[in-house]
């Protein structure tokens, strides 16, 4: 097979590419230049290039003796991921940019171009498995539960999964580092990246303030009593407890959590933890990774990248999915994905629109 291996300069994508080479495929490495952040990238007349990561990626390709190129997708990335990220926050939601990048960049812009150029598949260092049976490609959780990334891949449609290769799905992260060391890859000990790649200092609130401006507003309790002020409701996420900057503690001395964000009135509502629990989620649009399921059906739902999947009943109404959770969940933020699982298998994914409180049932 002719395989295009996306190499980020990190250890996972390096070992993924090496496994494709070892499996006898004709592999070409491509590093995606995505960001134009001046702190990590050279910007200016010649655009942007992640110098250190691209150098690491190039060295990986050298060691694997495969061709290496850089594809500049900064413009697409800005439009489809960064601008979307800002617009979602501005609308009071909490987006997941990695998910958007997989959907719009890695398995769309890159995959489309790769297929047109004569490649059969795109390989990445994601931790997830794809089971191929009966002409279908079924997305499954990774063997390494701690590293599982099926949540951010659940946006992929069947035709994208058909051409996706995740060679690390059956491995433990610790083994990957060891394998990289054995192969002589210099990135073996490179630390994992945790931050959003276009916010390298990790200060999302400051990034949003820089791009969306300051918009002073109130932080109120559920009765509308003003408890404090903020510089932009977009700086908050449902379920957030830290950094609220309230003027005084609640009468019961218990911590307060963000319950909801109202972008039009620029109001952040906070309340005690017991008001945070929700049991109802509606979301759209729905992506069925391998075809729609018969409605209603029971499944387990995961509502954030590193969350637990909890039992739920899903009902499908047109393009909308209504999820009833068995037990109340805390901090479910509109804009995040609700991914439905059947055991290890990913059934589908929706973007969380509305949530309903446990007590409202």
């Amino acid at each position, binding site marked *: 097979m002719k395989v295009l291996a996306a190499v980020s300069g990190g250890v996972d994508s390096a070992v993924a590419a090496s496994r494709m080479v070892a499996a006898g495929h004709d592999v070409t490495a491509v590093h995606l*230049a995505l960001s134009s952040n001046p702190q990590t990238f050279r910007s200016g007349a*010649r655009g*942007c290039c992640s110098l250190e990561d691209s150098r690491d990626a190039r060295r990986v390709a050298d060691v694997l003796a495969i*061709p290496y190129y*850089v594809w500049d997708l900064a413009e697409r990335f800005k439009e489809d991921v960064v601008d979307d990220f800002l617009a979602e926050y501005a609308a009071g939601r909490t987006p997941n940019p990695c998910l958007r990048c997989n959907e719009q960049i890695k398995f769309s812009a890159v995959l*489309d171009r790769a297929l*047109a*150029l004569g490649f059969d598949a795109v390989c990445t260092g994601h931790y997830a498995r794809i089971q191929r049976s009966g002409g279908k490609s079924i997305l499954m959780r990774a063997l390494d539960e701690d590293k599982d990334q099926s949540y951010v891949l659940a946006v992929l449609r069947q035709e994208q999964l058909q051409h996706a290769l995740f060679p690390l799905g059956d491995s433990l992260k610790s083994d990957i580092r060891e394998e990289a060391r054995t192969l002589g890859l210099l990135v073996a000990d490179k630390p994992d990246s945790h931050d959003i790649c276009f916010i390298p200092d990790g200060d999302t609130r400051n990034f949003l303030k820089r791009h969306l401006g300051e918009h002073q507003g109130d932080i109120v309790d559920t009765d509308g009593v003003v408890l404090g002020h903020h510089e932009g409701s977009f700086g908050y996420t449902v379920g957030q407890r830290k950094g609220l900057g309230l003027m005084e503690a609640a009468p019961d001395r218990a911590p307060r959590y963000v319950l909801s964000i109202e972008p039009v009135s620029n109001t952040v509502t906070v309340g005690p933890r017991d008001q945070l629990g929700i049991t109802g989620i509606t979301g759209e649009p729905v992506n069925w990774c391998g075809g729609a399921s018969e409605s209603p059906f029971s499944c387990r739902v995961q509502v954030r990248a590193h969350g637990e999947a909890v039992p739920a009943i899903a009902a499908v109404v047109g393009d909308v999915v209504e999820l009833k959770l068995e037990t109340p969940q805390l901090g479910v933020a509109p804009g995040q994905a609700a991914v439905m699982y059947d055991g290890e298998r990913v059934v589908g994914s929706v973007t969380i629109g509305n949530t309903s409180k446990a007590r409202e049932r």
Partner: protein
Amino acid sequence: MAYLDHAATTPILPEAVAASTAQLGLVGNPSSLHADGRRARRVVEEARETLAAAFGARPSEVVFTSSGTEANNLALKGLYWARRAADPRRRRIVASAVEHHAVIDPIQWLVDSEGAEVTWLPVDEVGRVSPDTLRRELARESESIAVVSIMWANNEVGTVQPIHQLVQVAHEYAIPIHTDAVQAAGHLSVNFDEMGADAVSLSGHKFGGPLGVGALLLTRSCSPVPLIHGGGQERDVRSGTLDTPSIAGIAAAAHIAQATRASEASRIAALRDELLVRLLECVPEAIVNGDTRLEIQHRLPGNAHVSFPGCEGDSLLMLLDARGISCSTGSACSAGVAQPSHVLLAMGADPDIARSSLRFSLGHSSTRSDVDALIGEIGPVIERARAAGAAARAGR
């Protein structure tokens, strides 16, 4: 396999290999006073004489550097600083809009950090600066101008500037002029004395010498402020222990390149012409960029720069590379991201057309089989790249 990227670097000539390797095992710092030092110094000075003779300069006008880029930096920063020190009004730099980054970036640095101003001279649709354009610019507050820099021949589209006339214009206003002759040397007749520029940059590996050595030809009245301070080797303008093996190599290459220049230029030009004719037969919608008058006074003999509408240059490069054909998309930054060329944009090209171009450059080792290899592969490559381009547009 076909190597069609001689403008990036051309294979080292066997004579240069012999001259360099003969020096590699020998001891002697050319600045030392003993016999070993004198032996090395003799090699350096003979090389200086050989290189000077090849390019019509006096030996004392040759300043060895580590690269063409260093030569450009020394000329631009050094002359700017020297001229500004002599008269603080002289802060303006006049250069063409189609310079190599090794000229653009030092100038931009002077603007950003040293209070310089720059005027980028416009070019016509083939990338040429007209002497009248330069004259008009120099007539405007000429006392404020520190230095003029216009390349001899363009690295991307191969356009040869009317450099003799441009030098004359600069001298009418008594302003020093530098020319980046990195692409011209070895292919065009480069005669320092006859053309009269104040400073000329050369790079060894572009005419069959080793990598890592270049030279700045510099009239004796020209005293740029040094970039590199130290032992004062090279006229106190450039310090650093002289690199005897590389200097021996660049001189040997300069000698051969000069001796074979006329016959090689016409052989290579004929091959390039054939490449273009056959390419246009295969891909009739392809657009030849730069001067379509292919004679050597207009265009570098080895240069073919072509746009393939609907394709992306980096797709084409990748597909050709996979078929053993090496070429270039023009300019790339250090991480390897291809951007639409500032040269083509300055010539008025559409950005999409600029992004769809490839540079094929021929040199001393090129043969018809290289052209055959390209022509044999280009058809299906264009088809694939066009499909990828269409996919990218559909995805928007």
